């Protein structure tokens, strides 16, 4: 059984220079309160691994605007001119990864596979510097697993064990990222007693979750 912590307490756990997997897709299914807490304490030199950096003022866009982020691994930064400007000026190092490759790299890190063999990116700039393997007549890129110091997970609700439920398009990267953080912090909207989430509805087992943020005010 776990105890809920405040956003400020969660931000204290995360040091400058930490790598963070952050759930969400254009701010949907993103742990907004955790992000705001990191901005509030002025974290620096963070590595953010996420599908995108949303827009200025929204979700991960706030971390970018506050200068918290030194490195981004994402599939898309096109709707955030601040990330693009940071990339061009050299203030932010950006690695662009095809979306399906990104989610599989994180999954591989989380489930202990040595890499991902995907045809996505073959014949494009994505293949630069990577090993290629021909298997049964098809060429695949060998993409490396991704893990991070922390995974910041947004969930619709959780129980006292930490079992998580997600909803609609707010699932996105969250269930996979919850496998790949050394420390996993979940930000649920609601917290329910044990037994209120039936076993079949659980999408992230509570054993993966280290800390639960207090419920949405």
């Amino acid at each position, binding site marked *: 059984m776990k105890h809920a912590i405040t956003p400020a307490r969660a931000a204290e756990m995360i040091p400058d220079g930490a790598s963070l997997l952050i759930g969400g897709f254009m701010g*949907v299914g993103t742990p907004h309160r955790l992000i705001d807490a990191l901005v509030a304490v002025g974290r620096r030199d963070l590595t953010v691994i996420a599908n995108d950096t949303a827009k200025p003022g929204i979700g991960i866009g706030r971390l970018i605007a506050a200068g918290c982020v030194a490195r981004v691994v994402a*599939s898309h930064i096109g709707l955030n001119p601040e990330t693009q400007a940071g990339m061009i000026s050299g203030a932010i190092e950006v690695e662009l990864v095809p*979306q399906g*490759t990104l989610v599989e790299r994180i999954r591989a890190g989380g489930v202990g596979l040595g890499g991902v063999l995907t045809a996505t*990116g073959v014949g494009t700039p994505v293949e630069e510097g990577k090993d290629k393997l021909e298997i049964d007549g098809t060429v695949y890129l060998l993409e490396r697993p991704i893990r991070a110091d922390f995974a910041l997970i947004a969930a619709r609700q959780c129980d006292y064990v930490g079992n998580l439920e997600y909803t*609609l*398009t707010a699932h*996105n990267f969250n269930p*996979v990222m919850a496998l790949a953080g050394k420390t996993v912090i979940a930000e649920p909207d609601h917290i329910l007693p044990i037994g209120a989430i039936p076993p079949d509805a659980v999408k992230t087992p509570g054993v993966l979750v280290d800390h639960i943020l207090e419920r949405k005010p």
Partner: protein
Amino acid sequence: MDAKERIARRVALEVEEGTLVNLGIGLPSLVANYLPEGVNVHFQAENGVIGLGARPPEGMEDRDLTDAGGGFVTAVPGAASIDSAMSFGLIRGGHLDMTVLGGLQVDERGYLANWMVPGKMVPGMGGAMDLVAGAKRVIVAMVHAAKGAPKIVPECTLPLTAARRVSLIVTELCVIEPTAAGLVLRELAEGVSLEEVRGLTSASLILEGEPRVMPLA
């Protein structure tokens, strides 16, 4: 009828009953408006739903239900929530029957470039590389030329999205099918001449008999 509507109407005729279809943001998303009466399609939003529906009624928007562009949408009865691993598993695994995407360039090999302009625009590839590498059919829906400059070219000068021959190119002027032999001109829009198309196309076009008139319904 403007160019975009013409393109969307023509692409809509390619959509088959009962299939799984992913429409890119922008022009491709218009295709959903022109489906033939009674055709039942499963639209995938790669950010997390199969059974993507129209815009919600005013005031009924849910922050956890958006399309890949971040706009509020509905889910049709029988929809399924999917996380990013399932979403791209469907795309990469050959379960997606068709994707419609915009294009910056397509070349005589049928290769598409649609995700970056070096030195100018580096938004990231998002899901485009997985979609082009994985979908059973890839339809490029784009305005034929960029302010008079050809986009259908002998060989893409922009970085490729995938080293895969797309299935069909639909513009407001014509329909072109990339084949092993090259780009075959299948249809001309009503009132558009072969010379007009050739004047706005730097790639070689192959004729196999007379092009038919591009149907719009």
